[in-house]
């Protein structure tokens, strides 16, 4: 499955159940407060516990939580399993820009250009402090760590321009450590790759 779709389904699954639970908790709470207000219900019952009920509300949430864990983990695997034919690009973070190095040694700053229809693997590193490479549209994020290479990948499936952010606080211009991802048709990419800037 397409990794973006996998992550989005996990979001819908977890958030959906959460919203239902929240509504249930809130409605029951408000209902009890009104239904059992002292002016209408002066004599409280003396109920101290109920083992069966407690077992049920321990076991059921455990099962639900485990399915959430599994859905989340599956979607994570989608972000980690890189297709073998992926185009590899080296990425370096530095205060305060992103540098991209292509297979033919071409280097750009603040602009990542990739061909449509290709899987792209980004090998990420930092030249100074911690940064974090984030493309919201492709749901990928990984820290750039000095001396420890990390990676992320995405399927360039739609022509367009996408935002790239730094999400690990890195100093005074952290908020301006931005870049653009441009997905272009393959022919355009090849021409771009060969032009000197």
């Amino acid at each position, binding site marked *: 499955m397409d990794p973006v779709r996998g992550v989005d389904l996990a979001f819908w699954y977890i958030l959906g159940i959460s919203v239902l639970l929240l509504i249930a908790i809130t409605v029951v709470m408000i209902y*009890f407060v009104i239904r059992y207000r002292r002016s209408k219900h002066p004599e409280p019952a003396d109920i101290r516990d109920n083992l069966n009920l407690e077992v049920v509300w321990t076991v059921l949430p455990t099962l639900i939580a485990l399915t959430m864990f599994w859905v989340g983990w599956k979607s994570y695997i989608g972000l980690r399993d890189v297709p073998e034919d992926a185009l590899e690009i080296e990425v370096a973070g530095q205060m305060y820009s992103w540098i991209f190095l292509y297979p033919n040694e071409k280097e750009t700053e603040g602009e990542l250009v990739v061909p449509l229809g290709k899987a792209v693997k980004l090998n990420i590193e930092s030249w100074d402090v911690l940064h974090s490479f984030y493309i919201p549209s492709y749901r990928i994020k990984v820290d750039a760590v000095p001396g420890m290479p990390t990676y992320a990948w995405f399927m360039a499936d739609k022509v367009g321009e996408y935002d790239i952010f730094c999400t690990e606080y890195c100093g005074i211009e952290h908020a301006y450590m931005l870049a653009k991802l441009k997905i272009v048709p393959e022919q355009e990419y090849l021409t771009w790759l060969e032009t000197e800037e």
Partner: protein
Amino acid sequence: MEQVKSFYETPSPAGLTGIKAWLLTHDHKRLALMYLWAVFFWLVLAVFLGMALRLELMFIGETIMGPEVYNSFFTLHGVIMIFLFVIPAIPAIFGNFFLPIQIGADDVFFPRLNLFSWYLYMIGGLVAVISLFTGDGFADTGWTFYVPFSVSTETNVSLTVTAAFILGMSSLLTGLNFVTTIHRMRGKGMGWLQIPLFTWSLYATAWVQILATPVISITLVLVVIERFLNIGLFDPARGGDPLLYQHLFWMYSHPAVYIMILPAMGIISEIIPVFSRKAIFGYKGIIISSMAIAVAGSLVWAHHMYTSGMSDVSVFVFSLLTFLVAIPTAVKVFSWISTMYKGSILMTPPLLMALIFIYLFSVGGLTGLVLGAAGTDIHVHDTTFVVAHFHFVMFGGTGFAFFAGLHYWWPKMFGLMYNFKRAYISAVLAAIGFIFHYIPMFILGLQGMPRRYFDYLPQFETGNFLAGFGGILMVAGILLMFINLWVSFRVRETATADPWGGTTLEWSVPSPPPLHNFVNEPEVLEYPYDFSGVLARAAKDKG
């Protein structure tokens, strides 16, 4: 009840007068109040810092401050809120005041150590203030002090870290004092299953304080050593490992989240039964879940690090453990709600605040599931989604539980009652402002806006504007709440010993309590939330 002198009129040690009777006191109640005023000061300061940050973010570009100030402000906001408000507030104020009374003791086991902890707290705060005005300014690292940035930045990180170290000591010693007190000083008839749930929650918390705090202390010392001696523990340029720092940092700071929330859960577990006039549902279940949270919560720290570059196996293990820690939390929420079933519920300001707590805390807890799941966390990690999530837990949760506790125990601590109407208005205003403040941040985070950003792209402007607007309402609500409490000192409407009809021992002593807490030998109930006595008294009063 016979007329007895309150602890305000009886200094301890005897003979001290004036300010000395406070600054050298061994009385746990006076110390609790000294913490109260200091905590108030820091809370108000940090609220205004936070408000300044949100005002800056209401519009694109620089509006009221530049990026240097902004970065120092969010660091300062975090450090103050975490180390000077959320961690100490409930244990140091309500814990100090009510833990000994709830177990039938006349003080904590180490009264002098208790005084020493207060001084450490004050010194820690003072060092934080000094680090603002000396060297090259306050740290701009965020409260997480991530290396290598915290090692390389020019700002005053060493002094700020020292402040956090001293505050950690204060918290650790308070925990030690509480554990010893609960083990050694319980009154006659007070077995483990007669202990009220607030004290139980402090017991679970205290163990986390004792076991986890040394880890952060050592880590912070290592950061200072790294800065001065360049020995290369964490700095990769010198062969160190920045991930090692993150592991050590979160090994404390995640359990610290439970130091912050467990006592808050304890307050809610007191308030709900009292105003429902009904036994807490599942007393043992709540105790077990407190201890389970303390244990399991210590094993999930690396869920802050899914994007850090650690191995996928670690991500698997920590994600799984994180989901397991959600269970005891869910159990508590279900227990609170079931307590109200067939109760006899009287709406009061503390109860309203406790209900707001349940709602806001549930939102915080449930959005935590998205962050615990590996794939979804990758997208929202280090975005404003996380900021909204932990503010729902720490502020909507611990903050509102603190407000609820303040209104619940105010008559006991001061012997004075406050105005109910203003208390309701302030709580509702703060809650509505809160929701407007943080819900937009969830949406911004899902859209991909990173946190700790001084400025942002145009697509994020509407959300940030709304958040700032909600923030103004929220701050207005909180200020009104504090003013209302302050006014009670002027109006002086006296409170009775037991204005709510509680079953725990603090309601059997005068308001405010005498120096040694109990006038007569306390009568310990076989089951601590048995309301038959309260109901009988209420029926008799009615005639």
